Structures are given as C-alpha cells and as structure tokens.
C-alpha cells in the first residue's frame, strides 16, 4: 500500500484517505451523540513498549501504521487497554473519535497534555481541561492554509461559473449553443467573514489581493487588523455581497446562518461554507436558493454528510464539494511533525508549540 505521505497528483490510495478522513472529520453528530466505543485501537500489531525509557503517550486511535512507526521513534505508544494508560500524562486524540470531556478526564486522571490531530476543538471541553491544569494543543495552521485556498477557489468558481462552464464545454455545448452566460466580477465586492481565526485571517489576506472589501464578525474585535469589525451577523449580512463561514462550531454558532441572515444577505448574495454544515440552517438555505432569495453558494460541508439535499444537486448556481477543503498531502506530512513537536515540548517542560486555550 502506498504510504499516504507520498501521494502525488495522480495517485489516489483510497484506503489511506478513508482513514485520514474518518479520523479527523468532526461531523455534527458528535455534538449530540455519545460515542460508546470511542477508544478502539484498530491496529492488530502488538504495542511494543520500547526500552530506553522513551516518554509514554496514550494514543486512543492510530491514523495508520505509519503513525505508530513514526511516534515510536520518539515515544512509547500506549493503548487505552494497557494498564499503563491510567498513569499516562500525555495523550493523542482525534476529533472524529474522541470526546475530551469530564468522563474521559476522570478515566485518565494523570493526563496533563492533550494533543488533537486536527484543527477543530469542538470535541474538547476546554474549560474543564483548564480547570484541571491539562494543556491542549491542536495542529495549528497547517490545515488552515488548505481551507483558505479552498474557500477562495469555491468563491471564484461560484462567481465565475468555472465548474458549470467546464461541464458545458465537456458536453459539447460551446459548439452547439454558443457562449456561456456571463459571471460576476469578484473585485470590489464586499466580503463578510464570519470568524477571523487562522482560517478567516488567511481568507481575508487572500481576498484583499483580489480587491475585495473585507469586514468580519467575531466575539471581540481583533487587534492590529485592518478589516472592519461588525459585531452582529445580521449587520454583517446586510453590508456584504458575500459571506464566508470560517468560525468554530459551538452552541452559539450552531445555525448562525438562519433565514433572517439569508434574507439580509439578499438577492445578489453568495455564501461560502468551509466550516461545518451545522453553521447553516440547511433547510432554509435550500429554500432561499430555490426561491432565488440569494444568488448562489459554494459548500464543502453539510448537516448530514455524506448526504446532500437533492434540490442543491440540481442547481447550476451552487458548487458542491465533498468535505475536501482540509486535506492535502503537504499538510498531512506536517501534522505528525506538529503533534510530535507538541509532545516533545510538554515533556521538556516548555510551552506547547500550538496551544489552544478556552476564551
């Protein structure tokens, strides 16, 4: 099997990617469902405890055998079933399978460091961790860049009808029906970014170069930022031609894009979602598009993946991608290195490299 780290443009090792996706996708199910068998350790290989005293890390679920090999060069990898697990001070978790909540923290009371192999942290109770003195790290911005690129790609596709006109060409229609209908200019448009974290900032930086005017919504204004801060979502939608959703999913941001916001965005409005399906009231979004109350959408995430509402599938003014924004081979290689760097910092008593704090 070709190792996932060496994927090139034309080689798709599907089995590895299925693992990667399962492990680091956090769908909305995890907000409501309690996982019962979260701590499965899938590899059949016996976990070897290396001599020489490499620091032990508790690993709930391995991405692949490659992870085991690479981690074992620096650490002693312990599975949840091992008797050593309850004295482990550091753990590697994944958003798709682990809920770092009070139960887990009670079960492994020695934990003082949690490293999550993705970007989102909505599966981690940050306040509880902070209360117990447990440091938390994610993998920082390596994925943010991919997501920002994809957001811009989706937006350009919707505005300039790239996917649809590509289909038009391939169906032979340029020859028989003439020119494709005109698209819409991106330059000068007002973009409202919902959430100016590492992904939102990267998107803003990119769109500024296209001549867009950027405003943003976040809980408080960000210092040292040249974009206009707008404190509520309705005003942001009213003022913008384009909304980009790039905040984390919390109780407050669930369905932050609802019917009123879509109406405020208006007939010429476009919405891009590369965050979580649950950020948008999908039923309302579909209705708005069906009735022409907004102009178009670029979506990488949905409320019930991998299902996509059939009304969207029939539309030409939307671009629909299957939760692809996050991963590229370039960032996958970086993820392991960043996790290792965080564990090494913890064991050396130094600050974590990519810490996450409750705010």
């Amino acid at each position, binding site marked *: 099997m070709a190792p996932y780290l060496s994927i090139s443009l034309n080689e798709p090792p599907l089995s590895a990617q299925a693992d990667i996706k399962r492990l680091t996708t956090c769908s909305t199910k995890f907000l409501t469902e309690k996982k019962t068998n979260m701590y499965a350790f899938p590899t059949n290989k016996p976990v070897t405890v290396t001599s020489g005293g490499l620091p032990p890390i508790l690993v709930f679920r391995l991405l692949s055998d490659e992870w085991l090999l690479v981690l074992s060069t620096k650490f002693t990898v312990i599975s949840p079933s091992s008797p050593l697990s309850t004295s482990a001070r550091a753990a590697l978790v994944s958003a798709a399978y682990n809920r770092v909540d009070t139960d887990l923290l009670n079960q492994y009371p020695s934990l003082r460091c949690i490293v999550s192999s993705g970007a989102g942290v909505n599966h981690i109770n940050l306040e509880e961790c902070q209360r117990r003195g447990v440091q938390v790290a994610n993998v920082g911005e390596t994925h943010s860049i991919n997501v920002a690129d994809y957001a811009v790609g989706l937006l350009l596709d919707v505005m300039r009808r790239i996917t649809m006109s590509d289909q038009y060409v391939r169906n032979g229609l340029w020859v028989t029906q*003439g020119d494709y209908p005109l698209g819409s200019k991106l330059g000068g448009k007002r973009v409202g970014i919902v959430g100016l974290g590492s992904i939102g900032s990267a998107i803003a930086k990119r769109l500024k170069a296209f001549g867009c005017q950027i405003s943003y919504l976040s809980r408080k204004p960000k210092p040292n930022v040249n974009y206009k801060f707008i404190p509520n979502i309705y005003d942001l939608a009213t003022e913008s031609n384009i909304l980009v959703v790039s905040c984390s999913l919390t109780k407050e941001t669930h369905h932050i894009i609802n019917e009123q916001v879509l109406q405020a965005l208006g007939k010429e409005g476009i919405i891009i979602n590369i965050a979580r399906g649950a950020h948008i009231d999908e039923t309302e979004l579909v209705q708005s598009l069906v009735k022409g109350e907004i102009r178009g959408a670029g979506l990488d995430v949905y409320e019930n993946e991998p299902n996509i509402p059939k009304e969207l599938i029939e539309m030409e003014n939307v*671009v629909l991608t299957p939760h692809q924004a996050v991963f*590229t081979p370039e960032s996958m290689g970086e993820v392991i290195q960043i996790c290792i760097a965080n564990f090494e910092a913890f064991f050396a008593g130094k600050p974590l490299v990519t810490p996450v704090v409750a705010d």
Partner: protein
Amino acid sequence: MDKIGVLVTHKPLPYLEQELTRRGCRLFRLWESPESRRLEFCRENSSEIRAIVGNSNFGADAATIDALPKLEIVASFSVGLDKVDLPKCKERGIRVTNTPDVLTDDVADLAIGLTISVMRRIPSADKYARSGAWKKGEYTLTTRFSGKRVGILGLGRIGLAIAKRAEAFDCPISYYSRSEKPHPNYTYYSTPIDLASNCDILVVACALTEETRHIVNRAVIDALGPKGVLINIGRGPHVDEPELVAALVEGRLGGAGLDVFDNEPHVPEELFALDNVVLVPHVASATIETRTAMADLVLGNLEAHFLKKPLLTAVV
C-alpha cells in the same frame, strides 16, 4: 454617430448593440452570414461601412480590410489584437483601439480561479458529490496551491495582477519577458524553458505575436513536467495544442487550466475524460461588469473618432 455604418463581427453584448443603435449607427451583422459568404457581405455593404467592432475571434484581417475602402477605425472588443492586421491598418491610416485595463482584474481572477480548480480538482469533486459517489467513499487528496512556485510568461498588466494575487498565497513569483523588469521580488528567467524548469505552475499572460506563437512547446511542457500545471488565459496559439493534449493524456504534464484554444469553440475531446484539467469557454473577461465597461470603451472610442476628438485607448 448618425447613420455611420458599423460592421459587427460577432454577436455583441445586448447593451453594446442597443447603444450603437441608439446613437444612430447602422449595424451590419457579419456573424449572421455563413463563413463562406462573409467577404461578399463586406463588399456588398462597403459603401457604408466606416467602422468595425471586432473581438478575440474575428477582428479585421487583410482580406476584410481590403474589402472595405471606407473603413476608418477598428474598435476591438478585446485587449488582444492578434486578429487585427495592424501593419495593414497603419498602412491604410485606419485607427485601431482595444479594451485594456478594464478587464485586467477579471482575467487575473480567472487565472487564479483556474489554478485552484485544477490543483484542488474542484469541478471533479463537484461531479463526485452530485453523483452520489460520496456515499460510497471519499474523494482523493488534492495538492495544495499556497506556497507553490508560480511562473508567469509576460509581466504586463495582466501578468502583474496575477503575481499580486499569487503573492497573497505566499507563492514565490518568477517570470519571463523580453527584458527584465524592475521587480526585485520576482525572479527573472531569460528563456521560457528556464522559467518552466523552475516553477510548479506556468501561466501564459503575454500578447500573441509572431514571436510568442507556440511559446509553450514540447520542450517547455517537458520542463514543466509531470507535477507541473499549465494555465492559459492568453490565446490558444500560445501553446502547441497537440503536444499539450498528448502530454496530459500520457501523464507527462500534471494538469492544465485552459480558457483558450486553437480553434474555438472546438476543444480537443481527448481532454474531456481527464480530471486534472479544467476547460472553460473563453470567459476570462466574461462578467457583466467587465463586458459593460469594455462596451463603454468601444463606444467611447468610436464616438471620439467620429467627433474628431482624441481616442481613448488607441493602439494604432
């Protein structure tokens, strides 16, 4: 512009057609004649035709100019003038105008849009999502755009606008042009092959002339290589199209985003099955905002000429 005869070579933007008519022009619609009858059509109406509104597909070639003894001005609805016989116009004292600047942003936007589409395979992923295949398995990993080396053939207005956008993605920028330009942040290469050897994404953004025809040939394609991506928002003849198709089909070139082709609207069908290729129907300036601005320039140039005022964007 009362009663001035204007030969329109292509089906125009409705706004342009309305405005020309409103200002009193008599329109002669060349595109409505079959190709074999077009010169005949010109001769039949030559006593009236004093202006041509051309575009990137049909401008004013030598034969057409010869058929129109009263022709005074060619106002092209495009920035590229490869379809206008410029020496002949100069010789006859015919003015030529184009539509620079107003389309620079849209063309640069499309170049980047095509690049991301090719590298992240957005059209192919969209097809995958709509087909229901997602329920059975994940789509493939696609390669990152940010940070890749972008090489630009031609650092004019459009080339610079592309560079500015690519810089926001932290892409190192390099370029080829006839002479080095004062841009210390961009690396200059004195040949297209050197440029192609040292970049991941090669963008064609120069004018089409005798010298730049097939500037992207077999050797340049080989230098770009199996991980390289070609983006063409220039003209079809910039690229040796059969060589390009062979390289893509055989996997010797990593991918391509193409807005222009040798024989539009015909696109080589061997490309239709490839998902590392994005094909769009010459849409780089095709937004309602830009086409309206281009129409205004055409109208402005025509009016200026017939009112004997200085032209807005004359090339000849």
